[in-house]
């Protein structure tokens, strides 16, 4: 890329944050990249890579008191050096030449002002429009970003709009003053997969129509395959790879990039074991192992005695409505399925589909409103509290949020010992401690973890601790409620491999709940698709993905971003 066409040139950006009186943490360790003026550039990195920090540094939005930017760093925008500009000049650029949209549209919009006011504000500030002109222009912008019925929505508050509409309003606000550069920081991560697709298409269309530069920040390399012209890959505050999209996806030079590309489960292959980052970082010439490995066969075995039979499961919540009445909200309606021994049932759906409620209701963490769950001939949902207690050993759950499912005040040892003590597993505490240590080793954690606190571990490690906690009871059924959704791609692969190993070793059955279709296909024998509390389709996973019957299933599968 020649120098004079590059809109943004970042050289040697070094950013550190002050964390205490004397300690600092380095977020960016000398990052350099270029942005051409009429192209979409994807900035990809996992959590802790520094991608958001880099974009905030360009905008000048890093908190002044705690940020230390190395004086040797340089950020040149349209030939002007940004670092060192006085604050008000820097601020004047924001919204006008450089605009930014964020991940959480609900909280990023001011809840007490209407959409029209917030968009109009930018027009009045930078373009000097009066209220009338701003309102007219706002209506045009809302139509351009695809908001239905702009004349009404212009006076609506953010809380009256859906997530997708809120993000469109944010985009309208950002493009209002015809910026040269649009920075989009994970704009679709908080949205459902079908909406995600629409927003991505919108951004691509706007980029072409206005010929602006778009810096698209994401943790998901596969997501940007269709829209990126160039790709920058970051890890731990450094740029690992930078180049044209075709080159990065087709023939990545850096081992980390290759790991990112290959660690995600693919829709067309199911290796026995997912490749993990360490495979690539250790041996940088390792080829894509997917098709070389033996494939795992999945599917239901006909004639097999099911372990769990669920019939017409229902869960109704009551919401207050009006003076004395209550309104019913059916989170789950008429859900039936069977689960074989040693098999995995994948439950797929978007937010609000009721999939999480199914899992929680099976464990009696919510009280079911109807239906039965037959396990060894007994209906688990109908048992009394006391009768159900021994069954708690046999069906367990791993939650989505690894940061919330472990008690922050307990050490790992205490977390593991507690279930054993409650169910009187093991003859003495000494024996229990031994078992706990063995389990830690089994899930791949060091022995020293026993005496540590959860906050000292990463997300992936905490999920392993949660898995170890369940294993102390040796359950037969394990419900995985979005258990890998909050993890980085590289870590996800490790945890999925672990779950698979445990299933092979102990013969556990899984109910795997997720919104991520690729992961579900990889790990499930059967897949159940849910929408608005009902089961829309239930079939063997290969069959379902190859030949979906229901239109909703088809739209879900169509929304999966294709790589390469």
């Amino acid at each position, binding site marked *: 890329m020649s120098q004079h066409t590059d809109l943004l040139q970042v050289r040697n950006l070094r950013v550190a944050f002050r964390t205490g009186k004397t300690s600092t943490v380095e977020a960016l360790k000398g990052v350099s990249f270029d942005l051409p003026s009429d192209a979409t550039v994807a900035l990809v990195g996992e959590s802790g890579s520094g991608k958001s920090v880099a974009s905030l540094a360009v*905008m000048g*939005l890093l908190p002044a*008191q705690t940020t230390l930017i190395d004086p040797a760093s340089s950020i040149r925008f349209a030939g002007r050096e940004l670092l060192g500009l006085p604050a*008000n000049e820097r*601020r*004047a*650029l*924001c*919204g*006008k030449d450089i*605009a*930014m949209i*964020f991940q*959480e549209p609900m*909280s*990023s*919009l*001011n*809840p*007490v*002002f209407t959409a029209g006011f917030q968009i109009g*504000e*930018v027009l009045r*500030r*930078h373009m000097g429009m009066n209220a009338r002109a701003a309102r007219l222009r706002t209506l045009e912008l809302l139509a351009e970003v695809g908001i239905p019925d702009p004349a009404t929505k212009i006076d609506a*508050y953010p*809380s*009256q709009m859906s997530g997708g509409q809120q993000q469109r309003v*944010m985009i309208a*606000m950002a493009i209002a003053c015809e910026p040269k550069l649009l920075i989009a920081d994970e704009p679709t991560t908080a949205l459902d997969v079908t909406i995600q697709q629409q927003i991505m298409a919108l951004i691509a269309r706007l980029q072409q129509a206005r010929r602006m530069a778009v810096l698209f920040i994401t943790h998901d390399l596969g997501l940007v395959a269709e829209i990126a012209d160039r790709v920058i890959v970051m890890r731990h505050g450094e740029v690992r790879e930078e180049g044209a999209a075709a080159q990065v996806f087709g023939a990545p030079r850096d081992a980390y990039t290759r790991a990112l590309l290959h660690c995600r489960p693919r829709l067309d292959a199911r290796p026995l074991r997912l490749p993990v980052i360490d495979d690539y970082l250790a041996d940088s010439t390792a080829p894509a192992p997917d098709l070389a490995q033996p494939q795992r066969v999945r599917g239901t075995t006909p004639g097999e005695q099911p372990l769990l039979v669920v019939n017409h499961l229902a869960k109704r919540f009551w919401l207050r409505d*009006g*003076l*004395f009445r209550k309104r019913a909200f059916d989170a789950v309606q008429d859900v039936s399925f069977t689960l074989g021994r040693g098999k995995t049932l994948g439950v797929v759906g978007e937010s609000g589909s009721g999939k999480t409620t199914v899992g929680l209701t099976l464990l009696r963490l919510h009280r079911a409103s109807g239906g039965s769950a037959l396990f060894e001939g007994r209906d688990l949902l109908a048992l009394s509290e006391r009768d159900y207690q021994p069954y708690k050993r046999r069906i367990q759950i791993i939650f989505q949020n690894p940061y919330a499912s472990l008690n922050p005040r307990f050490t790992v040892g205490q977390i593991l010992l507690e279930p054993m003590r409650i169910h009187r597993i093991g003859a003495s505490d000494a024996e229990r401690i031994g078992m706990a240590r063995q389990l830690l080793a089994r899930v791949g954690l060091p022995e020293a973890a026993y005496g540590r606190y959860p906050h000292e571990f990463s997300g992936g490690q905490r999920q392993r601790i949660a898995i170890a906690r369940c294993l102390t009871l040796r359950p037969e059924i394990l419900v995985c409620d979005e258990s890998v959704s909050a993890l980085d791609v590289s870590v996800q692969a490790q945890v999925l491999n672990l779950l698979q190993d445990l299933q092979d070793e102990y013969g556990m059955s899984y109910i795997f709940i997720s919104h991520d279709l690729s992961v579900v296909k990889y790990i499930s024998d059967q897949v159940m698709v849910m929408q608005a509390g009902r089961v829309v389709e239930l079939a063997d996973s290969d069959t379902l993905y190859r030949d979906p019957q229901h239109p909703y299933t088809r739209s879900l599968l169509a929304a999966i971003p294709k790589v390469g």
Partner: protein
Amino acid sequence: MLAYVLRRLWQMLPTMAGVVLLVFVLFNWVGGDPAYLLAGKMADTAAIENIRRQLGTDQPYYVQLWIFVQQIVSFDFGNAWSTGEPVADIITSRLGPSLTVLVPLTILETLFGIALALALAFVRGSLTDRAVMLACTVGMSISILVYISVFQYLFAYRLGLFPVQGWGESLGQNLLTYALLPIIIGLAVSIAPTLRLYRSFVLDEVGQDYVRTARAKGLSERRVLWVHVLRNAAIPIITHVMANLPALLIGAFLLERFFGIPGIGREVILAVERSDFPVIKAITVYVAAATMVFNLLADLLYRAVDPRVQFK
């Protein structure tokens, strides 16, 4: 909206009943028999019986409770035990002086508090911020008694800028001469806790995502604070002021006592000193009712002003 108001009023009933019950249990049961107190020393049995009959304390408890409820609803508590003045008259006449001090005080306190809190948010984390917060802490640790005594001694007694005590006839005279020093002292005492509270409201808002968006739009820091943050922080501030208004009536009791202002607060103190139960009971019940009503008003205001709640 109407359904919501009706439901809230309906929910207030058990609370009001609880308050009435609590006051009744406190004064008619725990408080014991005031007949001996009121009869004076060396009263004979006949006089004590007479007093009991007059007060109605010789009746069984449920009858007394019924009489109490009737009194509340009809706003007629009979006469104060110590002065003989009708309790209802006492309350209505004392309300005016209390409000003459409280209304200007509340307005000034809120305005100053908001302005200072926003100004502090501008320089948050800096030395100025911490110094002001330290000053607030020190200011709050000095008892209000000291403020009143010292201010009264210095500005009224020694320097003669204000009258030491007293109350006048007309509103204008009261507002401009007698109420001034109490209002100033009230401001001095309340500015520190008010500032701390409002500052925390403002800082909560400043940490929100929409502030980052506003900056990303290129708005000046002043506009971000005074338009975006203020509009959001105003919600808890206004509801806080509203909900606390009835408590202020009583809270000014020290000011009223020191300055001889014939207000509700001072009346309560006098009644407690004289064990004048009807006065205390009446004031307690009505202030409690006012608190609940103002809480409801605060809630309605909150709903009217916060779009998130309105349109759920």
